[in-house]
């Protein structure tokens, strides 16, 4: 038996509860009084360094973290100031960022999108990080960039080389200093032509994930444009450690160049296998058999040992460059850690300084204002006539004159073509610079087919 008494008091009560229920969403969303996510209110500001500390890219992650710690020291006015002294923008004073002391939290991406996002989320939600930076894999960078866009903080990408990061997955809150697969290919192709000729038959082994695909696509397009043929492209699982079964078919394929679209431990193993199979001594079609590794790093060269000698690839930066920025950075990194920095370290250090500088110039930590300062501007790279040649032009961070392009938040700068040294004098001289490819040669329009499909969208300050 139920009894329904409708009383004035009861009605009021129900009304009040229903009203509260309707008002709930506004209470929830209007809770934060600040103008943007994690507005720093105290005397310090927290940055989030999200790097792989375990997994296949742990070496790169460790070097990135060293660079971040160095950058924080320099921003806070400790140490010798590194590239802050050579940086063309003089907004940074060595008193933190906007007078606030820089603090940081670290996290482990495990080179997994999920784990990286969880780690970044905890930095934003728990530690109040105002900016997230890092990553040593394009999948992770894209995933974390998406998260930062939703959460309303700035993402300064670390080592990510896939075209997608500033291509179809670009986001208004995400910024990349590192070069990409297209630039690698554009820089490498002329050198390959000069070294190996126009009539070559290439066989690709490609790591089976986002980065591998865009890398292979870029190299294939660039080499075919100069007359090479592509015999085959075989995808290899990322977790693969023994590539013998992939190398054997190359020998009888009629190809005379092997392109290894691999990175990190993958590349070390596949290159070692290829050399063990005697590919480098082989003669095919009356030519010497050659191996190309599009994306290079000192860390990989160290892993591959002697096998790397004479093998050509590209790099974003190398510590042996002669400009003032590089010298200053290598000096202070070497003093602190006892060995020269890798290119991963340089890009992460540069990104941290660029962010801090943008905040100083914007006079606010508001991600939209910072973003404006990072890429907006009318300065352009000399020698390139294009409507999209617009953004923030700077110098002195190791890569020469560099443009942070406003159209897609990608940096444009010279690209290095490098080669494994034949007789390295010590373990720090495993790679020698073949050519510094000028930026005009690696320039592309933001609507290039390999980058098309994405939208920056609107900058999101969160809250």
């Amino acid at each position, binding site marked *: 038996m139920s009894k329904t008494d409708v009383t004035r008091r009861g009605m009021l009560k129900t009304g009040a509860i229903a009203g509260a229920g309707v008002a709930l969403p506004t209470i929830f969303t209007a809770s934060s009084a600040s103008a943007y996510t994690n507005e720093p209110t105290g005397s310090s500001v927290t940055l989030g360094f999200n790097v792989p500390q375990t997994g296949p890219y*742990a070496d790169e992650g460790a070097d990135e973290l060293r660079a971040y710690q160095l950058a924080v020291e320099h921003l806070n006015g400790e140490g010798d100031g590194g590239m802050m002294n050579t940086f063309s923008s003089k907004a940074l004073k060595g008193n933190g960022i906007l007078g606030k002391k820089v603090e940081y939290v670290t996290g482990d991406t495990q080179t997994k999108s999920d784990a990286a996002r969880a780690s970044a989320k905890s930095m934003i939600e728990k530690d109040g990080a105002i900016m997230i930076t890092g990553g040593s894999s394009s999948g992770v960078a894209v995933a974390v960039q998406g998260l930062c866009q939703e959460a309303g903080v700035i993402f300064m990408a670390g080592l990510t080389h896939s075209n997608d990061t500033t291509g179809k997955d670009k986001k208004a809150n995400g910024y990349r200093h590192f070069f990409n697969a297209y630039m690698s290919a554009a820089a490498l192709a002329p050198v390959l032509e000069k070294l190996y000729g126009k009539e070559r038959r290439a066989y690709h082994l490609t790591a089976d994930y986002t*980065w591998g695909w865009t890398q292979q*696509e870029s190299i294939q397009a660039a080499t075919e444009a100069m007359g090479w043929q592509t015999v085959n492209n075989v995808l290899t699982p990322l977790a693969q450690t023994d590539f013998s079964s992939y190398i054997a078919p190359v020998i009888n394929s009629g190809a005379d160049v092997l392109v290894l679209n691999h990175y990190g431990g993958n590349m070390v193993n596949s290159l070692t296998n290829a050399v063990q199979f005697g590919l480098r001594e082989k003669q095919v079609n009356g030519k010497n058999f050659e191996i190309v590794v599009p994306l290079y790093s000192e860390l990989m060269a160290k892993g591959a040992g002697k096998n790397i000698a004479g093998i050509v690839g590209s790099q974003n930066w190398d510590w042996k460059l002669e400009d003032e920025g590089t010298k200053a950075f290598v000096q202070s990194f070497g003093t602190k850690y006892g060995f020269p920095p890798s290119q991963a370290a340089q890009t992460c250090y540069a990104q941290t300084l660029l962010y801090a500088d943008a905040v100083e110039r914007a006079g606010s930590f508001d991600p939209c204002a910072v973003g404006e300062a990072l890429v907006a501007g009318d300065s352009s790279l000399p020698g390139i006539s294009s409507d999209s040649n617009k953004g923030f032009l700077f110098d002195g961070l190791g890569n020469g004159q560099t443009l942070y392009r406003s159209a897609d938040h990608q940096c444009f700068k010279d690209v290095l073509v490098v080669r494994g040294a034949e007789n390295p004098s010590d373990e720090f001289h495993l790679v020698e610079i073949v050519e510094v490819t000028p930026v005009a040669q690696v320039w592309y329009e933001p609507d290039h087919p390999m980058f098309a499909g994405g939208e920056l969208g609107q900058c999101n300050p969160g809250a």
Partner: protein
Amino acid sequence: MLGLDKKDTTLMLVVAALALLAPFILNPFPEGSAMAQFNAGYPDLMQRFAIYGILAIGFNILFGLTGYLSFGHAAFLGVGSYSAVWMFKLLSYNVIPGIILSVIVAGLFSVVIGFISLRRSGIYFSILTLAFAQMSYNLAYSVLGNPSSNFNLTNGETGLQVYASDPQILASASAPEVPHLFGVAMRSSYQLEVGSWLFTFNAGYYLCAVILMLSFYVSVRIFRSPFGMMLRAVKSNQQRMNYTGLHTRPYTLAAFVISGMYAGLAGGLLSTMDPLAGAERMQWTASGEVVLMTILGGAGTLLGPVVGAGFIKYFENIFSKINEGVLHQWFGFLPDGMESAVIWVVEHFVGPGWHLTLGLLFMLVVTFLPGGLVQGGQHLWRLLAGKSRKEEHAKTETQSTPAE
């Protein structure tokens, strides 16, 4: 209450209290204090506690009751995640269709996998489920996820996410551009400041908490039902049941599908809290993690899996973030030489070394508390409550307990 006996009602109330008061319970240390490092009361981790709790509850229905050890539950988690994100892409950011579809798809998926795998038992069953999960992972990672192919179901390594160009046919202009429940964004939180404490009440967490309580309730009902009894019988001696003329496979298949749906629900919720589904969710390590959670907490107990899930997620998210800088703060009071020595030792157990700490704890628990953390809790409770062993012995001796 609700068809539960007194003991279960208490248990249910405890779970409800824990779930609803989690923002207070998990943030015991004031902001800015040295111990704030150990606070776990931020939305992302609380959501993970609840979601992995649901996953472990579901896993326990299969493993705890029937004894079938599945090494492939991550596949259902992943399938659920992808389903939910596809709903966001096609319909709208409202979470309801996503959650419903994730349960349905994971259910269908587990019928297929269960139908094949359950033809074998023991280690062969485990290997079969593992094989299916790895297969799903590889499909999601590369075969079905190449962005340049026409059929890009999972978006490979990058993970499936929502783009501005997606249809979202039911999306209304007023709704937020993030997953929401009828306008309440999952990421929105209300922050309560009490003195120097800060408590965060997150909309998404409370959705998870409510679903966790429902899941727990359903699980209790299954444990106490004749169906649950049948599953226990399968665990103790399946052969004997077959000899009596009883066909056990429908029961085990039902248990498998129910637990698969739980996993799908958890996956859907993961996507709901963070609309990106990565293939790593399906990797064998993720399947292994569920097994660890259940065993660590106590397989076959009602509360154990939830405790185990919370434990592992706490380690993964809190211990992994203690870096050298933090250690220097802690041990700064020691003399220089000793400080670096202590830090050198501790360093291997925190930060990237959190796996090591977890492994050691797991070994200790399995060796000394075979019943999991719940058993440890019971020991502790008995000590605290002052109930002497004798009393209990006397009780059990006069009583004849039915065999488990």
